[in-house]
């Protein structure tokens, strides 16, 4: 594969800002000498901008202000301005506050994207999914979770974020009963909750709230659920993610 073919293959990811900084620079240089590639990227970037602006204008009155309020705490980077949302400067973390791991430029872009996802989910009317079973004693849940992990017909996986961050193990049995082993997640401050999402459809679907200090938590999902993520949301939870996932992964 030639270098040009390599860059052509990356044009879609480039339009979605899904390349790393080194590739981004190289592709920009390539676009300067390839008019066809420039046209393609412009077309794809217009699609992204159109969808984003559509979501923003379609949310109910006042929702966008609330979304922006949730974003207070995100820090725009000098080399990557975000004119559409104009994120305010991020305050210093408070003692005891949980800081999402490694909020780099990409993660911050993720916060913006997640906000758009939230609006998208509002549009399609995504409702909260099954209520997480938190009534049973943890010891009982631990036994059930162990049994599920030992069941060869179950699918399991690990959700993780940035290197060195928490890892959450998940198992889903053939009936869609699942368990999350979330001891690795730090306790959240008052007024916050972890929330579990399925990312298999066009928009994230909530699978339930995990609470501020989850240990072993049960949930119910479609038996075919594959891609899962956990976010930190304001209690009592959100109809769509307001933050980029803290951890994310697949069960298989």
């Amino acid at each position, binding site marked *: 594969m030639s270098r040009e073919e390599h860059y052509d*293959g*990356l*044009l*879609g*990811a480039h*339009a*979605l800002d*899904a*390349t*790393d900084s080194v590739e981004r620079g190289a592709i920009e240089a390539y676009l300067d000498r390839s008019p066809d590639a420039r046209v393609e990227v*412009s*077309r*794809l*970037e*217009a*699609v*992204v*901008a*159109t*969808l984003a*602006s*559509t*979501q923003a*204008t*379609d949310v109910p009155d006042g929702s966008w202000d609330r979304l922006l309020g949730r974003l207070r705490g995100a820090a725009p980077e000098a080399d990557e301005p975000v004119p559409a949302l104009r994120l305010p400067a991020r305050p210093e973390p408070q003692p005891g506050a949980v800081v999402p791991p490694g909020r780099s430029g*990409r*993660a*911050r*872009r*993720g*916060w*913006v*994207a*997640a906000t*758009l*996802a939230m609006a*998208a989910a509002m*549009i*399609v009317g995504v409702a909260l999914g099954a209520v997480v079973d938190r009534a049973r004693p943890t010891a009982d849940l631990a036994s059930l979770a162990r049994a599920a992990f030992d069941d060869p017909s179950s699918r399991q996986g690990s959700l993780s974020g940035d290197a060195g961050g928490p890892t959450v193990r998940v198992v889903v049995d053939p009936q869609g009963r699942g368990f999350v082993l979330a001891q690795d997640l730090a306790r959240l401050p008052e007024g916050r909750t972890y929330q579990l999402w399925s*990312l*298999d*459809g*066009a*928009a*994230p679907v909530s699978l339930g709230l995990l609470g501020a200090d989850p240990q072993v938590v049960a949930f119910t999902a479609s038996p075919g659920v594959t*891609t899962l*993520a956990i976010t930190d949301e304001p209690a009592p939870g959100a109809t769509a*993610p307001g933050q*980029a*996932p803290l951890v*994310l*992964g*697949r069960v*298989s």
Partner: protein
Amino acid sequence: MIRSEKVTEVLGALAAGEREAIVLAYFGGHTYREVAVVLDQPEGTIKSRIRSGSHKLADVLEAAGLEARP
């Protein structure tokens, strides 16, 4: 303004693999390399899915006569 039903329709026009890759890259804020790891797929596959899925989105939007906003 694009109707909400159209947004749903547009995203629904993608193949499952394309939608999954685009959702993780765009909504999840991941690079295509990260998406490849998450989905346990070759990077080339993810690149192709993102590119083809993005073009399908463009086709649907343009066919519907929806105004692009670069």
